[in-house]
């Protein structure tokens, strides 16, 4: 009864594939049982929409006459990296203007950064380009200042080194002062708890052993079609366990993704600012999971009640890289609006949008049902969970 990619794609082309969102799969398994659901369903769609700092866009502007070898580049006053070929540049999501006050007026606002440039680009707004060069015999021009839109340039490729974190810390603040973090504003003395995945809809929580996701997996990226290019940086997947050995779901996996920015949409690439922390980009990603066998269906049907996030203190433990955590909470508890930490009831709030994640999973489902989106069999699967992740430590 196992299925192949080719069989599923043949059904998609005929318009006969059975596609459900990860949320719908959970209901289907409850209703019909795992074996029946795994037989019926061909593809499960997932989604996530949240801030993903390790994101950016490679651009090629085309050549001016006379030519310039761009040594420094600014887009809407935000510096882009230009240490590549003459008119190539990379605009990173967290870059901010050189005259941004940063945290000198704490907490800084970081109102406009690389993520906002990317959203303006994809919204096809005019972008102000300034570049300087030092002049060479083949590239004599020393300065250019102009405006362009996404349609005017040769290429714009979204290439994000680390996206779609499999799972993430639930952030709290044990200190006695308010802190401003990439997990939002955290009030002192366990005043609130912030989390940031879509739980039962989140792509990498639904394929914890990377049995289907790998290099070349075709995905929903920023409203267009993208691909998994590699495992993301800091990809250290493992299965969380309690002291008694009980499994608490996966954590630590990440994706490196790539796609043509010109197909994408400002609804799914949103410039984002965290008070006191910085600028970034909220990215929408959806990964289709082919139900090749019952085991893949079982893992894709994991519920919020079975998926857990570690609770981590961002007042002291996180910034100082102290090991350990304050326990685990399930996504069902997180979504209920309150959890208990150190005996205290703490209100919770997400930073990643569940409604947008559901919209992505539903859009991807529609694309597949209409035959617009075929599954791509990975060239190579991503590294699976290891027993004991050992991230590098800077000395």
């Amino acid at each position: 009864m196992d299925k192949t990619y080719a069989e599923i794609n043949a059904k998609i082309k005929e318009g006969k594939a059975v596609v459900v969102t990860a949320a719908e799969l959970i209901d289907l398994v409850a209703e019909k049982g795992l074996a029946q659901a795994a037989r019926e369903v061909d593809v499960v769609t997932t989604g996530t929409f949240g801030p993903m700092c390790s994101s950016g866009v490679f651009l090629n502007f085309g050549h001016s006459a006379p030519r310039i070898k761009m040594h420094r580049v600014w887009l809407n006053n935000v510096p882009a990296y230009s240490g590549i070929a003459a008119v190539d540049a990379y605009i990173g999501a967290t870059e901010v203007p050189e005259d941004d006050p940063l945290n000198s007026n704490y907490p800084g606002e970081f109102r406009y950064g690389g993520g906002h440039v990317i959203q303006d680009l994809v919204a096809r707004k005019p972008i102000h380009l300034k570049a300087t060069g030092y002049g060479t015999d083949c590239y004599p021009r020393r300065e250019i200042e102009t405006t362009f839109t996404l349609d005017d340039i040769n290429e714009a490729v979204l290439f994000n080194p680390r996206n779609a974190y499999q799972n993430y810390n639930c952030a709290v603040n044990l200190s006695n002062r308010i802190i401003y973090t990439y997990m939002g504003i955290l009030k002192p003395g366990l005043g609130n708890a912030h989390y940031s995945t879509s739980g039962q809809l989140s792509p990498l929580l639904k394929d914890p052993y990377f049995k289907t996701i790998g290099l070349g997996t075709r995905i929903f990226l920023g409203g267009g079609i993208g691909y998994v290019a590699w495992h993301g940086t800091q990809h250290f997947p493992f299965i969380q366990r309690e002291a008694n050995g009980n499994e608490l779901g996966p954590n630590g996996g990440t994706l490196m993704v790539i796609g043509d920015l010109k197909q994408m949409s400002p609804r799914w690439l949103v410039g984002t600012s965290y008070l006191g922390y910085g600028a970034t980009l909220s990215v929408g990603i959806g990964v289709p999971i082919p139900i090749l066998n019952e085991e893949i269906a079982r893992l894709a049907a994991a519920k919020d009640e079975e998926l857990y996030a570690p609770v981590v203190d961002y007042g002291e433990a996180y910034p100082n890289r102290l090991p350990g955590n304050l326990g685990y909470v399930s996504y069902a508890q997180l979504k209920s609006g309150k959890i208990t930490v150190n005996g205290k009831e703490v209100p919770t709030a997400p930073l990643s949008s569940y409604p947008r994640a559901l919209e992505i999973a539903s859009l991807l489902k529609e694309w597949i049902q209409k035959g617009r989106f075929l599954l791509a069999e990975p060239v190579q699967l991503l590294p699976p969970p290891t027993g004991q992740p050992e991230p590098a430590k800077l000395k």
Partner: protein
Amino acid sequence: MAPKKVVLRFSADIADKPIIYRLVKDYDLVINILKANVNPQKEGTMVLEVRGDLYAAGLDYLRHQGVLVQDLTQEIARNEDLCTDCGACTAICPTGALYLERPSMEVQFDSDACVVCYLCLKACPVRAMEARF
């Protein structure tokens, strides 16, 4: 009568007049200052909870003095085109005016519960919360 919340805007030329004193003394209104930013020779704003039989007459007095009077609910607004329903504001809002609808997890804004503290303007990562003047 239930208290009403109003936002008062004072232009620079009337910021040094004892307007609130007269409002309380002459119109016998019970007021609670929720927020105030008043400086000599500068424009000022104040958020007031007001209750009393002469409420309407009191507000007319304010307008007559050149104070711009608005209902509080007009003050903070959610730009629904920008809001991504992430929820980052919901544990920051002190009054529960911003909250998550369950199980959809959509962000809702109950402007009646808003006290115009502006915390959501800081907490919103996409600047969807706007102060409208």
